[in-house]
C-alpha cells in the first residue's frame, strides 16, 4: 500500500507531476479501438475513433456533456447493445481479440470488462447478495467460495471494515459513497481485467470522492481502468493517460501531463483551461 503518496496527491489537486512521474511508457496495450463509429438510429454519436488503452493504467476520458465519452465507454463492454436501434462500425480488441466478432455471447465480454455507473445502482438485496450476484449468475454455487470472494471484494473496495458486521442488511442502508464502493466491489467480485467507470464520483460529496479516487489509485495495480469524468482535477489526479472528446470525435489523446500542460490542439487547451465546457 502506497497510501501516503496517494493521500498527498488528493490534498494537492493539480499536482500532475506526481501522476505522470509514475508513467511507464512500455506498458502493453489492453484494449485497441480501431476506427469505431457508433449511431443511435440516425444520430451518429461517435466518428471514427481509434485509441489504444494501456494495461494497468488509468485512462481518463474528458469532454463536454454529449461529446460521446460515455457512449464510447459503453462500446468497450458491449453495453451499448442493450439499447435497441443502435449500429456501429470498426473494431474493439481486447488482448487482440475482437469483442464484437470473436465472441457470440456479450455476457462473456462483460465478465472480463466490468462497469461502474454514474449513479450507484445497488440491487434491492442484502450487501452480501449484491456482491454474490455476479458470481451466481455466472454459475458459481460453492457457498464457501462465494463468501470468500465477497469478503475479498469488499476489502479491495475498502468497504469491509465498515460493513463486515452487517452483511445481511439491505444495500440501501449504506450512504451514497458507500453504495458506490459497494458497486465497485460488486464489479470486482467477478474478477474482471478491465474496469470501466462512468463518472463514478459525480454524485458524491468531496470526502466520498476522495475515497473513490484513492481506491482507483489502488486498483490500478491490478486492473486496467477507463474512467469518464467531468471533473478535470479528477482526471489530472487519478489518470495516467487522458483522451479529450469533442462532438463525437477523439480530439487528442496522450499522457495526462501533456494534455493538461502542453496540449497540441487549440480545442483541448480551451477545454482544459476552462474556456468552454
Amino acid at each position: 500500500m502506497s497510501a501516503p503518496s496517494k493521500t498527498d496527491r488528493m490534498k494537492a489537486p493539480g499536482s500532475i507531476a506526481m501522476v505522470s512521474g509514475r508513467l511507464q511508457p512500455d506498458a502493453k496495450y489492453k484494449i485497441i479501438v480501431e476506427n469505431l463509429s457508433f449511431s443511435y438510429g440516425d444520430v451518429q454519436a461517435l466518428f471514427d475513433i481509434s485509441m489504444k488503452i494501456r494495461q494497468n493504467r488509468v485512462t481518463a476520458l474528458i469532454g463536454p456533456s454529449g461529446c460521446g465519452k460515455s457512449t464510447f465507454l459503453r462500446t468497450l463492454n458491449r453495453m451499448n447493445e442493450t439499447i435497441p436501434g443502435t449500429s456501429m462500425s470498426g473494431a474493439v480488441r481486447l488482448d487482440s481479440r475482437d469483442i464484437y466478432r470473436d465472441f457470440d455471447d456479450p455476457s462473456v465480454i462483460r465478465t472480463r470488462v466490468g462497469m461502474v455507473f454514474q449513479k450507484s445502482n445497488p440491487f434491492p438485496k442484502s450487501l452480501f447478495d449484491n456482491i454474490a450476484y455476479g458470481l451466481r449468475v455466472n454459475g458459481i454455487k460453492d457457498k464457501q467460495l462465494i463468501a470468500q470472494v465477497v469478503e475479498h471484494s469488499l476489502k479491495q473496495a475498502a468497504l469491509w471494515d465498515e460493513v463486515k458486521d452487517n452483511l445481511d442488511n439491505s444495500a440501501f442502508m449504506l450512504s451514497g459513497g458507500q453504495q458506490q464502493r459497494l458497486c465497485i466491489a460488486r464489479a470486482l467480485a467477478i474478477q474482471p481485467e478491465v474496469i470501466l467507470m462512468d463518472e463514478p464520483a459525480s454524485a458524491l460529496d468531496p470526502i466520498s470522492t476522495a475515497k473513490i479516487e484513492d481506491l482507483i489509485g489502488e486498483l490500478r495495480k491490478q486492473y486496467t481502468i477507463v474512467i469518464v469524468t467531468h471533473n478535470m482535477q479528477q482526471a489530472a489526479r487519478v489518470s495516467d493517460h487522458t483522451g479529450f472528446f469533442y462532438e463525437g470525435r477523439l480530439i487528442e489523446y496522450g499522457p495526462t501531463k501533456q494534455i493538461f500542460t502542453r496540449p497540441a490542439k487549440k480545442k483541448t487547451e480551451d477545454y482544459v483551461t476552462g474556456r468552454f465546457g
Partner: protein
Amino acid sequence: MERLIFKPKSRWREFTGEKLISITAFVALIAILLIFVFVFKEAIPIFTNSYVQEEASLDKMVFKQQFYEGRDSKWSWQPNSEVPKFSLLPLFIGTLKAALVAMLFAIPLGVGAAIFSSEFASRRIREIIKPAIETLAAIPSVVLGFFALMVLATVLQNALGLTFRLNAFNAGIALGLAVIPIVFTVAEDAMTSVPRSLRDAATALGANPWQVSMTTVFPAAIPGISAGVVLGFGRAVGETMIVLMASGNAAIISASILDSTRTFSATIAAELAEVVFGDTHYHVLFMIGSLLFVFTFLINLGGDIVLTRLKERLAGKTI
C-alpha cells in the same frame, strides 16, 4: 417601458375552487361510508332483535346446529325451508373455493403474461398482447358468465367426465378470466417501472437477458405483483354474475372443487329480490353483504400492509 401593474389575485375564486376540488375527493369517501352504514343497519337486528335471533343468531350462523330431533347436527343454508337454516359456513367455503380456483388459474397466467410482455416480447407483439388482455377486463361479467354456463361447462364436463356440469372449477376458471387482466396490468406496470439502472447493473455483471429478468427485475417488482394478486383476489371474492351463472349454486359443504358451489355474492343476488322485507332471511342477507364488505376491505388493507412492509424492506428501512 410601461410600468407593470399586477392585479391582486382573487381570493374568492381561489377559495371556492379549492373547496370544490376537496368536495370531489370526499364524495367517494362519503359514498363508501353511507353504503356501509345502510347495509350494516339492515343487519343490526341479528344482534338486537330476539325474534330474528331465534332463527339466526351469530352462533347459529357459525356453529353446527341440530335442526331435527334424532338427526345429526350440521351446517346448512336453507333459508326457505320449514325450519329455516342460516349457517353461513357452506357459503363461506363456496366463496373461497371459487376464488381460490380463480387465483390458481389467474396468477400464473397473469404474472406469466406480464413477464413476457415487459421482458421478452418485441414491441410489436407487446402492442397486440397488452390491449388484448386489457380487453378481457372490458367484457361484461354477464357475458363471461354466459360463456361459462353455455360453452365452458360443456367442454369441461366432456373433457373430465364430470357428474355436475356447473361447479366450482367451471366458475373459478370463468372468474379467473375476469381476474387475469387485473393481475396482468398491475404486475406488468410493476415490472416495467423497475429502473433501467438495475437492468444495466445486472447486464454489466454478465447476466444474460433471462437472468436479468428473473433474478433482478422480477424480485424488484414483487411488491407491485403482490398488489395485483391482492386486488385480483378482492375481485374474485366480490364478483357476482359469473359465479351466479356458472357455479351451480348448491349451498353444500364439500372439499371437492368439482362439486356445485354457492358464494356469498351469488346468494345475495339470487335471494334478495324474493325475500320478505323485514324477515329474518332479509336481515341475514344484509349480514352477508356486511361480511363481504368487511372481507374485501380487510383483504385490501392486509395487502396494503404487506406491500408497505415489502417496499420498506426493499428500500432498506427494516430488515
